[in-house]
């Protein structure tokens, strides 16, 4: 047991070697030329991060962005989950809706940006709607497929044992589709940040994307780099949450 733990420690260390080397390389590349304005040194970025943490801007922007992401995710993911469930379970709604949804899926969300701005302005709504739109599809498709590819034998077994309605859903359909649904969640988390960055860069008055955009206009490259780093960290964080969820909810899969 102890031996295994040690092995895992090595693995964790190994994971971080490449990012560390990258930062070192970055430092080396920017160190020699002190007056470099296009490519800021790590030290400058850190200083900027500290000053923005002190005046509360960094936290505020992160909070604004995270809030948009989460609300958009809940709305889009919720609708995607419900529709995926509905079309997976009922033939009628499947025939009526699935073709349309598959068609809409092929539209790049970013192509809708101009249309959305005209319709919804540049307020909070447009960002949330775009995130919801992007998150919807991966969740929908994976929920739908998760249910469609359920083992029919298990459902039949459930019926023999008198499971129906909600009990059948709770004990067999949902857990059976869950691993596929979580794949959808993981994919949609990636899409979520991607769309939010784009939306915030084009039209926003707060948030990380807005911070990057204004910084670019003022040639504050350290601030631009900082916003990129924050996006990377937020992306990593949501991935960690997703894989934690998978490990937690799909414990039975580890053994089989």
């Amino acid at each position, binding site marked *: 047991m102890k031996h295994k733990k040690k092995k895992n420690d090595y693995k964790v260390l190994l994971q971080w070697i490449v990012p560390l080397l990258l930062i070192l390389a970055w430092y080396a590349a920017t160190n020699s030329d002190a007056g470099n304005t296009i490519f800021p040194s790590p030290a400058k970025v850190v200083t900027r991060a500290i000053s923005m943490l002190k005046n509360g801007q960094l936290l505020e922007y992160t909070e604004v962005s995270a809030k948009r992401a989460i609300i958009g995710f809940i709305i889009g993911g919720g609708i995607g989950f419900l529709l995926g469930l509905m079309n997976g379970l009922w033939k009628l709604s499947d025939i009526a809706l699935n073709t349309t949804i598959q068609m809409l899926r092929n539209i790049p969300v970013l192509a809708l940006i101009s249309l959305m701005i005209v319709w919804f302005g540049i307020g909070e709504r447009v960002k949330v709607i775009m995130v919801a739109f992007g998150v919807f599809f991966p969740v929908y498709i994976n929920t739908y497929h998760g249910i469609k590819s359920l*083992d029919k*034998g*298990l459902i*039949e*077994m*459930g*019926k*023999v*044992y*008198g*499971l129906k309605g909600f009990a059948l859903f709770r*004990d*067999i359909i949902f*857990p*059976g589709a*869950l691993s596929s649904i979580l794949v959808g969640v993981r994919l949609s988390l990636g899409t979520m940040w991607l769309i939010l960055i784009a939306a915030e860069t084009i039209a926003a008055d707060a948030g990380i994307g807005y911070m990057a955009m204004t910084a670019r206009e003022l040639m504050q490259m350290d601030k631009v780099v900082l916003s990129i780093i924050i996006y990377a960290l937020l992306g990593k964080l949501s991935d960690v949450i997703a894989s934690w969820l998978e490990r937690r909810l*799909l*414990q*039975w*899969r580890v*053994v*089989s």
Partner: protein
Amino acid sequence: MSENKNGYGIEITNINKRFGSLEVLKDLNLSIDPGDFVAIVGHSGCGKSTLLRMIAGLDTPTEGSIRLDSKEVTGVNCHVRVLFQEARLLPWKKVISNVMIGTPDKNEATAAQTLEKVGLINKKAEWPGVLSGGQKQRVSLARALAGKPNVLLLDEPLGALDALTRLEMQDLIEKLWSEQGFTGILVTHDVSEAVKLANRVILMEDNNITLDIQITLPRPRLKDNDTNYFEQLILNRLLKIDIEQKELEAGKMDFAI
């Protein structure tokens, strides 16, 4: 037969079953005594599984009626349980929770008792994924029996198991049948399995019953001359048909030339 108050009698009258234009069962009649153990053998596609599914209420006959304890079967009900070829355990539930599905009131104590009977109480906290094929099927048997059913339908449940495990399972099924007194119907390809377990063996061919014999041997049955006699009797019938058909086909070929 032991104390068979628990088992239900089954009355099947003039059953027809068609899937589209395909006729699977034709004018079939069968009466099974309460607490009896009947084996149905026959080639693949002879309709034996369909018959079983209709008794379970998973399929409905095109014409005719199936009565269980004098009541018409209209759908799945708690008196009948099925053991399928695959164990069909829920991989996301621990062994004990899988068995609890079979208890009428989701009772853990009853489930544990039944697991004890199949000898797997020590695996109750495991995921089904870690069990062997035979163990899975035993859990499945516990789930089926946890609700004390009146009829147990076995749809080739041992077909996928290795020979040794199969023998163990046969003994277990026989033991639980004599303890609980349910009516058992076993669909199988394996004639010696049929002769070992059943009081009565039915052969199905061409959408109907063509042989119906009582196995009058005492239990537990060991493989000996007596069981061989019955096995041979059934096999002869099965194989003779095969030979006749081959001769017929061969004859046709000659004729064509």
